[in-house]
């Protein structure tokens, strides 16, 4: 997070200068570059996957079932990562799985970020009974066996896209609330906030125009890391058969299906797992770097 003096300084330098400096620091960090490559690949697959797919992910070729990847004996270029027990193209399935996993993770992050930030701002700035009660809820999360709750909710309510998003969002919002609240508490008594209040700015204007920009750096760091956590959680639910729908290939359910063929067709389990790993690693690397540049004392 930027100190107020520094924040004023950066605001006064031109946007172009600031972004050049940001970009230079980015290029100097190997972790950030690798992370960005993974994230871009993931986003690329999400956006252009449907166009690029060589064969529709769901197309069946029963006479070409369980083909090995291209680099093994018997592999063909038509199925670069091999095919599954129904002769579906594994690469195509992984690419279409990207859409599901990443869309869900990002949508859930948006929900929990909005909810958590609003609650954190409110309870940090206004406090009061409601603010304190809301923060008590975040304490509850520490003792809450969330994974069990998620399994239970998914089992009763049945599979569904929005249900998974709600479950993921519920698991994430407390982190935002806690961090935004503690930073709002710090900012509330700063000179610039007093000045804004004295000049007659409304409460909403003070919170959103003045305080929010000064706490948003941490929120962005948290959101980046949170996408990674959500991809893992969604994959876990899908692995247990409690994801969006058993018929939609998602990375987690592909690992679960491939497990039955682990002795004969290892690629069915290994490659979807690596897809999860690399996309999660990408968001984690980026988040780690963003945290480092926002807090120079951290990590160096």
């Amino acid at each position, binding site marked *: 997070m930027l100190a107020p003096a520094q924040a004023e300084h950066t605001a006064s330098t031109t946007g172009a200068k600031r972004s050049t400096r940001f970009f230079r620091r980015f290029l100097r960090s190997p*972790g950030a570059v690798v992370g960005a490559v993974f994230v871009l690949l993931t986003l690329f697959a999400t956006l252009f996957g449907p166009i690029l797919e060589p064969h529709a992910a769901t197309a069946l070729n029963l006479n070409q079932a369980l083909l090995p990847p291209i680099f093994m004996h018997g592999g063909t270029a038509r199925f670069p990562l091999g095919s599954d027990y129904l002769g579906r193209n594994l690469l195509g399935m992984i690419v279409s799985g990207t859409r599901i996993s990443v869309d869900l993770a990002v949508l859930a992050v948006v929900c929990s970020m909005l909810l958590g930030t609003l609650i954190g701002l409110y309870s940090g700035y206004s406090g009061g009974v409601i603010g304190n009660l809301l923060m008590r809820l975040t*304490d*509850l999360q*520490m*003792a*809450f*066996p*969330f*994974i*069990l*709750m998620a*399994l*239970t*909710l998914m*089992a*009763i*309510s*049945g599979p569904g896209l929005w249900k998974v998003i709600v479950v993921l969002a519920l698991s994430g919002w407390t982190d935002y609330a806690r961090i935004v609240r503690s930073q709002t508490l710090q900012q509330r008594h700063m000179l610039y906030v007093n000045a804004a209040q004295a000049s007659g700015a409304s409460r909403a204007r003070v919170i959103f125009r003045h305080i929010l920009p000064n706490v948003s750096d941490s929120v962005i760091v948290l959101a980046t890391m949170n996408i*990674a956590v959500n991809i*893992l959680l969604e*994959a*876990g639910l899908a*692995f*247990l058969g*409690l994801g969006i729908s058993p018929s939609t290939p998602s990375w*987690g359910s592909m*690992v679960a299906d491939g*497990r039955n063929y*682990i*002795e004969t067709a*290892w690629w069915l*389990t*290994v490659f979807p*797992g690596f897809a*999860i*790993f690399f996309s*999660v*690693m990408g968001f*984690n*690397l980026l988040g*780690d770097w963003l945290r480092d540049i926002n807090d120079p004392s*951290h*990590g*160096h």
Partner: protein
Amino acid sequence: MDLAWYVVRRLVNALVVILLVSVIVFVAIRLTGDPAASMLQGVEPTRQAIDQLRHALGLDRPLWRQYEIFLVGALHGSLGTSYDTGQPVASLIGSRLGATALLAVAGVVVGAAIAFPVGIIAALKPNSLVDLSARVFALAGISFPNFWLGIMLITIFSVALRWLPASGYGTPQALVLPALTLGLILSGIQSRLVRSSMLEVLRHDYVRTARAKGVREWVVIVHHALRNALIPVVTYMGSTFGALLGGIVFVEVVFSWPGIGSLAYQAVEQRDFPLVQGIVVVTASLLVLMNLIVDLAYLLLDPQIHLE
């Protein structure tokens, strides 16, 4: 404020939290869908069959009355009867606790055995190649899907090399792969904590003084630095229990380990709601208790901390 008063206050707080958790799981199960209807899935149930089942299970009573029955039972040590097996929920859970405790302890020990050396070495030479590798290792640890890591270890050590069993319980060999999976996942979080905490401590004057006095380097690291670095590590342990629990559920399912996690998964699959409810409440109680123990350990570790 003295210690006894602090402990009493924390215990009251813990009870409130457990009660709240029980209300939330109770209401959530009944509001997100009809347990009776979802239990009869697959047989195309008639309205009458659902109503009969609802009545038999007591689900046709008002919500508060159902909760009252549950709460009074819980205070008498009964958590209800499993729909699926007809056995008391409390004894079903009790029979699985040992296996989960064994796995948790083994996993935490393996995790610490990896995390402490990695974290300390990384902190001694910040920004070196060793540190970079340690940071990549830690990030990889939190980026692996835990269920997939378990399957990969099975593929390598059980399927390909045939060194260790892929599942089982009761032999030391059967514990190795589950504990390793859990330990690898935890070591990612733990080594980051150890590293940043050691970095912080090594900057202090007393470390420089100890070195200037000519104290041997490993004594400085273990005696002067590590002892103080442990305090934040212990404090943050509370926040890793959630990750530990999540890890345990998936590791138990993958390795068919007969603990609470696999029991929970079976209960969810069978829609055995009294059992699910019981497991959530018992796990929440354990989490609260462990957090309390961590906070007390924190007080004992650091004599400078005063109760506010």
